[in-house]
């Protein structure tokens, strides 16, 4: 099989957005993932959006069972999985019906026409066949009998027709790989490795993939072949990585950088479970993973491990964070290092377990009883999860405090190319434990006071096992210094204020402004909105208008320069995947008339949506053109 056979027939585009949609059993996540990998190796910049139903096996052929994977590939730096797909691959009528609305007008629609028969049409809720008639006018429709051709291709291999049917996603992958001039070897190699020992499956998948590729090459599709050239990425070694993997590796890195063994207490919950899976693999790094009986035990065990000198971590999503609230308060009171990771999902209650949302900020900030401040950091991209995990550990271990790390379903499952950092460039995390008395009692004897704070108000930690420094700590209010139980009113007020001040005074880097510093409008974001905001700001500026953006990694404490920065813009817009949580904090903290841009669809913002909101406001401000 050749690569780009006849250059004359291949047109160049700078980017393309492809959406693979089919039944949950059709293997669309795998298809999308393979296409992404091939594109990454080809050198494109890319961003992905896997979307799948919460049910493991929704009834086949129904709208509820549609699983989709959107990938945006380009020859330049991109920040989102794209506003609307240019190409939709629909493996059955339900996929067509549910996802057609996302396709750009005039976009390319590739359908497996074998599935458009009466039963499937009825399951999808069609009373007619949309392939006949005018339903799809305005799109370039490519109807392919994928099932038939795949079965034919497998006929002589000894593969049963039913098994051959399961390879049709590789046909689709082969066809789209041909259309976008993807290298074929990585996919064929992957098939060989993935299905090693199952020769018939390898043969069927290879045959299907090759048949799809050949179909593109030998039919009238010739004119439609395009190439998206490699993006001018910074030189280096790259890998394609999703947020949960990057976060897991960040935790492993933090363990190495601090010299503390990593201990994860976790309870399975979508979309955080993959971190438990990933870390369970890394025993070679001395990682202990503990699948607890519930969310509370998971955080409790992490606190216990942290008390013993491990880097204690617990991972969860919103419902689990709610359950961990009391134990997080204990960690605040004990002033022990702890990382609490919340991979946010749609809420309230069970909500939308597999869909993204970022509505846990208020719970992260205030979701514990009493005055119990915790530093909060949030990742902005899948690869940023690596760095933010290290930052969370650095704060926790330096300032002896539990830290909340916020990510979300979109970052967790979405992937992008990552230029691997040089491990030697990662800064070590200094950890100090007390080994000597720090106080003298009335009898002139040396004693250890666990709440005798240093200049940063950080208390000393003496690990159990340290001779002579035996002491007791607990959730009851403690006397300043000695740590003994105290119900004294003045002492309580002092301790509340000390705990508040020591977290509020943790130094965090200044927030940086991107775009036009002298613009009238500043767009402020946190978490995964970075991609859409950055994409939107680039587009608006490319259109000759001025706009600036600032993105917060540290949500508590907030950067010291944020107040002045907000005050220096005429308008401040805060896009969030909630009903306006950060915007309330900014208004309360800084008395600025910041306005929200909200979305609650279980999907990330598109750059177009943010762009539209920016333009509306610039319009209303009567100018802004540079």
């Amino acid at each position, binding site marked *: 099989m050749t690569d780009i056979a006849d250059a004359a027939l291949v047109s160049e585009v700078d980017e393309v957005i492809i959406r693979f949609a089919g039944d949950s059993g059709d293997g669309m996540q795998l298809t999308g993932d393979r296409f992404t990998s091939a594109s990454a190796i080809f050198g494109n910049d890319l961003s992905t959006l896997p979307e799948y139903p919460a049910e493991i096996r929704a009834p086949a052929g129904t709208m509820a069972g549609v699983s989709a994977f959107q990938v945006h590939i380009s020859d330049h730096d991109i920040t989102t999985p794209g506003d609307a797909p240019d190409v939709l691959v629909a493996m059955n009528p339900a996929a067509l019906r549910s996802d057609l609305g996302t396709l750009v007008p005039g976009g390319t629609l590739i359908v497996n026409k074998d599935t458009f028969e009466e039963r499937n049409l009825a399951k999808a809720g069609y009373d007619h066949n949309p392939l006949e008639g005018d339903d799809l006018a305005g799109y370039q429709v490519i109807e392919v009998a994928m099932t038939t051709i795949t079965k034919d291709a497998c006929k002589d291999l000894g593969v049963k027709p039913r098994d051959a049917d399961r390879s049709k996603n590789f046909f689709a992958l082969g066809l789209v790989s041909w259309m976008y001039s993807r290298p074929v070897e990585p996919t064929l190699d992957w098939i060989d490795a993935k299905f090693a020992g199952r020769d018939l499956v390898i043969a069927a998948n290879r045959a299907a993939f090759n048949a799809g590729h050949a179909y593109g090459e030998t039919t009238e599709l010739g004119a439609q072949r395009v190439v998206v050239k490699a993006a001018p990425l910074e030189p280096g*070694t*790259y890998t394609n990585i999703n947020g949960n993997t990057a976060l897991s590796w960040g935790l492993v890195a933090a363990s190495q950088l601090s010299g503390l*063994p990593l*201990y994860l207490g976790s309870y399975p919950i979508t979309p955080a479970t993959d971190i438990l899976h990933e870390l369970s693999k890394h025993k070679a790094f*001395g990682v202990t993973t503990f699948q607890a009986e519930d969310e509370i*035990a998971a955080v409790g*065990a*992490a606190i216990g491990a942290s008390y013993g000198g491990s880097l204690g971590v617990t991972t969860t999503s919103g419902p689990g964070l709610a359950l961990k609230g009391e134990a997080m308060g204990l960690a605040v009171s004990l002033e022990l290092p702890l990382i609490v990771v919340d991979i946010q999902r749609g809420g309230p209650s069970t909500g939308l377990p597999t869909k993204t949302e970022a509505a846990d900020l208020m719970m992260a900030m205030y979701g514990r009883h009493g005055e119990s401040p915790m530093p909060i950091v949030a990742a902005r991209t899948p690869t940023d999860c690596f760095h933010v995990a290290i930052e969370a550990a650095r704060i926790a271990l330096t300032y002896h405090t539990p830290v909340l790390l916020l990510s979300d379903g979109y970052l967790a499952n979405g992937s992008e190319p990552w230029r691997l950092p040089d491990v030697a460039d990662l800064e070590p995390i200094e950890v100090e434990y007390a080994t000597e008395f720090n106080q003298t009692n009335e009898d002139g004897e040396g004693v250890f006071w666990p709440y005798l704070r240093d200049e940063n108000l950080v208390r000393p930690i003496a690990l159990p*096992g340290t001779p002579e420094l035996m002491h007791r700590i607990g959730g009851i209010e403690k006397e300043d210094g000695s740590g003994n139980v105290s119900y004294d009113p003045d002492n309580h007020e002092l301790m509340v204020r000390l705990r508040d001040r020591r977290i509020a005074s943790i130094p965090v880097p200044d927030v940086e402004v991107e775009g036009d510093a002298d613009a009238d409008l500043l767009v402020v974001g946190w978490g995964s909105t970075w991609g859409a905001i950055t994409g939107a700001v680039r587009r608006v500026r490319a259109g000759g208008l001025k706009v600036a953006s600032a993105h917060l990694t540290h949500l508590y404490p907030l950067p010291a320069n944020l107040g002045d920065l907000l005050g220096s813009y005429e308008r401040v817009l805060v896009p969030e995947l909630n009903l306006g949580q950060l915007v309330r904090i900014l208004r309360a903290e800084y008395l600025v008339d910041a306005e929200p841009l909200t979305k609650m669809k279980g999907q990330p913002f598109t750059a177009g949506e943010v762009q539209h909101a920016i333009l509306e406001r610039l319009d209303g401000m009567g100018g802004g053109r540079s």
Partner: protein
Amino acid sequence: MTDVLDPGTEAEADAVPETTRADWSSDQEVRWCPGCGDYSILTAMQLLLPELGARREKTVFISGIGCAARFPYYMNTYGVHTIHGRAPAVATGLAMARPDLDVWVIGGDGDMLSIGGNHLIHALRRNVNLNILLFNNQIYGLTKGQFSPTSQKGKVTKSSPVGLVSRPFNPISVALGAEATFVARTHDLDRRHMQEVFRRAYEHEGSSFVEVLQNCNVFNDGVFSTITKKDVRDDMLIDLHHGKPILFGSEKQYGVARRPEGVVIVEVAEVGIEYILVHDETIRNPSTAFSISRLAKTPATPTPIGVFRAIDSGEFGRSVAAQIREVQAQMGRGDLASLLRSQPTWEV
């Protein structure tokens, strides 16, 4: 690096220093109600630990919430007073991270069988290396007198003014149901017995579960006096001894025999000594121990004490650590740079 921390390794080589009760007592004033059964449990522990040759710096008491849970403050060891019900969870993390420590878990019947019941049964199921002492006084003391999950049916309390309608947990039966590898009962009026049971719990590898019948003289006074007072003990406590026939009564005139419906109390003279059940702590099947635990439904009838079950089984934390060591022996220590390159990579 990144091995289990053990800051006391160097000290380990030295002989354990001689200690006394004073060395194990913290400088904090004990604040239980005067006459509380907790005092005698504390004394028993403070006197026992020097005898066991334990090291104070290697000893950690973890507790939840309740009267019993104040225990760690009075021990001159490491200690954490955590939150209601969660002590077994916190202790599990500590014991996994630090197999070099002796971790004791202290809690009451509300703490460990109500709000924290889930953590208790899972700690026992996993066989984490913990010594769990449940002070059972059949009442909520710290919140001033509500019924607990071990209160007897019909019990009149502030939250059950016309009598409790639900039946209680039998803590020993719960622990045996979770297949705990060490299960024992003792009571606060017999220091020698307490110390013997605590010593056995300390020496057992894995989860040791001890129910201590404890008097709350303010909210549930005398609830166990029908069985634990000195003058009734002989007839009302069935002291279990491994390898010995299960006999009790001032003349050892009563015994326990196996019947199709379970074990029952019999008169030795009627059935003959050869029919009396010989106690065996080491039977892996917990059924017989469970049956013995069912002999007394309320403290009004003869109640077994002592060690019900003590079997060797893989300890959880060490098994988890062994998996890590095995992987490291096979693959070597993890290398971060290699981890980052463990998925397909490409060069630009």
